[in-house]
């Protein structure tokens, strides 16, 4: 009997559509102490930049209604340490390993893409042009269709593996950006990154975050994420990894009906460190309840009057 959770994400075969979202799972080592990571559909690791990045001043997180703001600022140990020490232990898991790449210039993106995509066993890159928490790079590349297309084209030219482009919701027209990066050769899309927001301490009359503003995530953003996945799905033909506030199997189905071929769980990993295996275990009975034998039947299955 075939695996009812198996999905095809472009050229990647996933045993199930559930993966952690970049930035919410480190490089997997913290969670590897808690459960067997090989049961995941894929792993998306933290954004990697050419040089070690210290990140933003603290406080870096603030809780908000049904969500949280973060302004980590892409803290990571840099390309060399990531490729030599952090990625190799993930390869033997036998599931697709997707590396999120970031930088302050197109040259940075090219450098990281070139090196990371050569690491044996890496399945794909996730091009981060949507981080709202760094002054240079990140969102500067993701807010304009032409710039987004340029960086996509340059990275595609040097990458030995498929490239998924992670899109920001902090734009006027996400469809224009999605279609521009598709035309530039993107193999798939990840959406959404966090929504820019802020929180204020009224007694100190100061922002709670050291960076003043930060990215909103968690259940609070799910309706926005679903709407954007739905809109982008209707405009592109490349596969979409949907994310934004997913905390349970029912949320997964919502995103897949909206058009996602796979999904990523971010903030919920912080609340329940066992959330990914829990969601994966909850999916088969939910499929039975919904009367489908393969989860792929649900992709884009939203009924519109």
């Amino acid at each position, binding site marked *: 009997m075939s695996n009812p959770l198996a999905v095809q994400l472009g050229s990647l075969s996933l045993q199930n559509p559930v993966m952690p979202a970049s930035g*919410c*799972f*480190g490089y997997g080592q*913290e*969670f590897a*102490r*808690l459960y067997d990571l090989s049961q995941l559909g894929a792993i998306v690791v933290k954004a990697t930049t050419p040089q*070690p990045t*210290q*990140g933003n001043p*603290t*406080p*870096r*997180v*603030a*809780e908000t*209604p*049904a*969500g*949280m703001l*973060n302004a*980590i600022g892409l*803290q990571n140990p840099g390309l060399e340490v990531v490729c030599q020490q952090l990625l190799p232990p993930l390869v033997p898991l036998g599931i697709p390993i997707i590396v999120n790449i970031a930088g302050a210039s197109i040259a940075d993106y090219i450098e990281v893409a070139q090196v990371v995509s050569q690491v044996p066993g890496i399945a794909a890159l996730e091009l981060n042009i949507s981080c709202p928490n760094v002054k240079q790079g990140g969102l500067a590349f993701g807010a304009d269709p032409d710039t987004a297309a340029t960086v996509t084209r340059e990275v595609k030219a040097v990458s030995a593996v498929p490239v998924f482009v992670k899109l920001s919701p902090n734009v006027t027209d996400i469809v224009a950006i999605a279609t521009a990066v598709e035309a530039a050769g993107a193999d798939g899309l990840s959406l959404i990154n966090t929504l820019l927001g802020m929180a204020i301490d009224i007694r100190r009359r100061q922002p709670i975050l*050291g960076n003043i503003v930060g990215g909103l995530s*968690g*259940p609070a953003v799910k309706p926005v994420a679903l709407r954007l996945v739905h809109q982008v799905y209707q405009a592109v033909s490349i596969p979409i990894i949907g994310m934004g506030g997913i*905390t349970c199997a029912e949320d997964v189905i919502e995103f897949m009906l909206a058009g996602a071929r796979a999904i990523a769980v971010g*903030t*919920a*990993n*912080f*609340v*329940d*460190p*066992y959330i990914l295996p829990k969601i994966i275990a909850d999916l088969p009975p939910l499929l039975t309840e919904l009367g489908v034998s393969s989860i792929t039947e649900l992709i884009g299955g939203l009924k519109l009057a």
Partner: protein
Amino acid sequence: MLNCEAQVITNTPLTASVFSLTLRLPFAPDSQVTPGQFYMLKVSGNIGLDPLLRRPISVCAFDPLTQTLRFVIRRVGRGTTILEQLRPGDPLEVFGPLGHGFPYPEEPNTHALLIGGGVGIPPLLYLAQELSNAGVQVTALLGFRSEKEVFLLDEFSRWGTVEIATDDGSLGACGNVCDLLENHLTNSHWSIAYACGPLPMLQRLEVLLGQDQRPVYVSLEKRMACGIGACTACTCKRQHPEPENRSSLVCTDGPVFRLGEVELDV
């Protein structure tokens, strides 16, 4: 570290805003629970996820025989209000123990100085108990805002000598706990010190004890999301950034650090 659903045994007020919550774990922790370690408490219950994040709370006592875990918590917002309203029999999901606790003195027959301010005091009670049981002499310096806000005083007295300071002088010395500490700076009796409390207290403590050759350990608090090193929210700068400008995380490298190891900031 393990995640499990614990059961509330008691939840009693100690002051108008501080309460003592004891829980029974359904099974033994997978490692020792040492003073200074913390648990992530899921305040949103079993339905929904709001408030979203778990609350990191330091252990105030742990009894391995009954698998009973105690936390002493101050109500400051939505999450701690939910914890305050828990009643005996209620379930509460907890994840831990997490982080590194207070290192014990290497030599026996030592005298330890414990310095606590406000809601930083509870983990020091567990430490006082463990040190005293190990034969270490304990002197605790405790600071509160006023007599009305004093808690855990009797329990500290079981494990050693206690000195109290209150901001308004309503009990003990008038001033804060660092004023008490000033009397012990040149005192040669103590050979190791442990501190937990608000940031301004720890910053003043660093001024007072920063040059002291005796080991001083401080427990830090920082906004965090996961408690296991994945979110990297609770980063702190190392005072001597070796090697390669590495920073530390309060959750996994701490929350207890040797004084001088990391910068004390928000």
